[in-house]
């Protein structure tokens, strides 16, 4: 559990205590009107989670001092889902309380003349859009991101609902201060991300100098026009591509920085069929705006002096590739690293280079193409001797399903959670 998850759980605990203290006779209240109690606690937990998700996804600089960006997004997805469940149960129990009155449906789901209800209803519908498009609809990334961005305006309605709805929040001062405080932080985070970040966060301008394609991977090399990004091995950044000085799409995408030469950097883009296809056809000389760097994965690898196992699947090999290149270029050797790399189709880009750098650096390198040698199960890949060695640290990067399967296997073998370090920047992934 990362520090932001702990922070969220602490916030929930404080909310719960303040809610209990807001009741003169709490036990009597819960026992006489259980449904009302459920309605209230679901609303409070849902609201705390809802505003917390905005803070987690804001990319505010102090957050990355607490934990890495991919972990922040992971917590964002989990907290957002919990908040969604809380608010769904809040509305459900509100309706259930009025049943069998026929107006139960119209009162809480159809806007009327009551402003406090109307803003709550609007925020609820926008939240439903977020939840359905994220968890149940398999939309292309750029469409999903646009919907996510538009639906995020629901925070304005949610904030207003919290301010003006007659409730414990309006009558109990400690609870009011606490809830409005969290909501205000959420609002600040949202305003920063949507309106201020583009002006505040430092960006770096690059030009594309080379494009190399092999199967479904495109390696784009670019040169800094002025300052170069202070990237570290294994870090990633957000890239916005322009063609003929027109933005290809306004969205920025995260990619691992493969190479950290003085003025040059390279990224690998896997063609996933939407935005990534578009940028793989970008002409040489195109402008690229880069923000970052983010991520602590590479730093943690380099800081670990004991035995390590690196497991990279598909495009998840990129941070390992970046660190291996760094070690190779500096003539550093590291004999206590086992690198396992597997792809679904034979790899012509990373595998040959990794093979060469493994020889020079002493990394024990194993490559497998799953379409030829079959699925790489953790039990086949990792020997009993390795998993029983409590000093081994595991670094995993790849699809969320693979990370989840390997993490579960390692935990079942008694490997402590702190020795399983993962990186997944699939922002839409449903696996936590």
């Amino acid at each position: 559990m990362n520090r932001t998850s702990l922070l969220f759980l602490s916030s929930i605990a404080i909310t719960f205590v303040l809610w209990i203290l807001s009741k003169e006779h709490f036990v009597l209240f819960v026992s006489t009107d259980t449904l009302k109690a459920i309605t209230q606690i679901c609303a409070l937990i849902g609201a705390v989670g809802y505003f917390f998700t905005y803070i987690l996804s804001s990319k505010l600089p102090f957050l990355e001092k607490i934990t890495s960006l991919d972990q922040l997004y992971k917590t964002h997805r989990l907290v957002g889902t919990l908040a969604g469940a809380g608010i769904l149960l809040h509305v459900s129990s509100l309706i259930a309380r009025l049943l069998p009155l026929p107006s139960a449906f119209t009162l809480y789901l159809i806007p009327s003349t009551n402003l406090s209800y109307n803003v709550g209803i609007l925020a609820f519908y926008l939240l439903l859009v977020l939840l359905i498009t994220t968890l149940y609809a398999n939309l292309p990334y750029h469409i999903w991101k646009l919907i996510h961005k538009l639906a995020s305006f629901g925070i304005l309605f949610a904030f207003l609902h919290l301010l003006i709805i007659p409730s414990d929040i309006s009558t109990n001062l400690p609870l009011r201060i606490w809830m409005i405080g969290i909501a205000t932080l959420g609002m600040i985070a949202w305003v920063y991300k949507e309106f201020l970040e583009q002006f505040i966060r430092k960006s770096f301008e690059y030009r594309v100098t080379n494009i190399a394609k092999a199967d479904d991977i495109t390696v784009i090399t670019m040169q800094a026009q002025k300052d170069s990004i202070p990237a570290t091995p294994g870090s990633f950044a957000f890239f916005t591509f322009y063609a003929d000085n027109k933005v290809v799409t306004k969205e920025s995408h995260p990619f691992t920085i493969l190479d950290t030469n003085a003025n040059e950097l390279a990224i690998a883009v896997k063609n996933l069929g939407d935005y990534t296809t578009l940028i793989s056809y970008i002409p040489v000389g195109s402008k690229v705006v880069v923000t970052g760097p983010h991520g602590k994965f590479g730093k943690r690898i380099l800081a670990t002096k004991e035995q390590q196992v690196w497991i990279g699947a598909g495009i998840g090999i990129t941070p390992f590739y970046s660190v291996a290149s760094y070690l190779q270029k500096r003539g550093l050797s590291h004999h206590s690293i086992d690198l396992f790399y597997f792809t679904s189709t034979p790899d012509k880009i990373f595998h040959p280079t990794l093979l060469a750098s493994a020889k020079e650096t002493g990394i024990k390198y194993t490559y497998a193409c799953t379409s030829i040698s079959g699925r790489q199960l953790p039990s086949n890949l990792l020997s009993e001797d390795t998993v029983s060695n409590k000093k081994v640290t595991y670094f995993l990067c790849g699809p969320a399903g693979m990370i989840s399967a390997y993490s579960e296997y390692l935990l079942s073998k008694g490997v402590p959670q702190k020795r399983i370090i993962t990186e997944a920047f699939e922002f839409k992934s449903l696996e936590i």
Partner: protein
Amino acid sequence: MNLRSILTPAFSAFLITVMASVTLNIFSPQQAGRDDTSVETSDIPMPTQATDLTVTPSVSTKPSTTPSVAKPTATPKATARPTAKPCIVTVNGSRYDVTSLRKSHSGGNIFVCGTNMTSTFQSMHGNDYNIIRKYKIS
């Protein structure tokens, strides 16, 4: 852990509740043609205005389909205007005319005219009957 496994039970609960309330909304007696004033108007004192404004067909030589408001008469007749019909509910043994409250109630128009709404009232407002005192008619 898959995020859908967290949200799907909450979603199911929501859908079940919505379906139940929609079903009640569609098939409730009120919607099936029940008069809002299930309490007979003769049972209660009519608001003054209702006795003042009676609707009668206008006397005119020209054919007209539009009824016009006749001069005020002192004769108490049952009004034909639906908006003038009162909505009476019973709370804790007392009867209340909530006709005007239906539009201004902060919790929306939850009233089922002619029914005993004591439990609904108590679930929302406890035993604070003072807040509806001004609507009390008997």
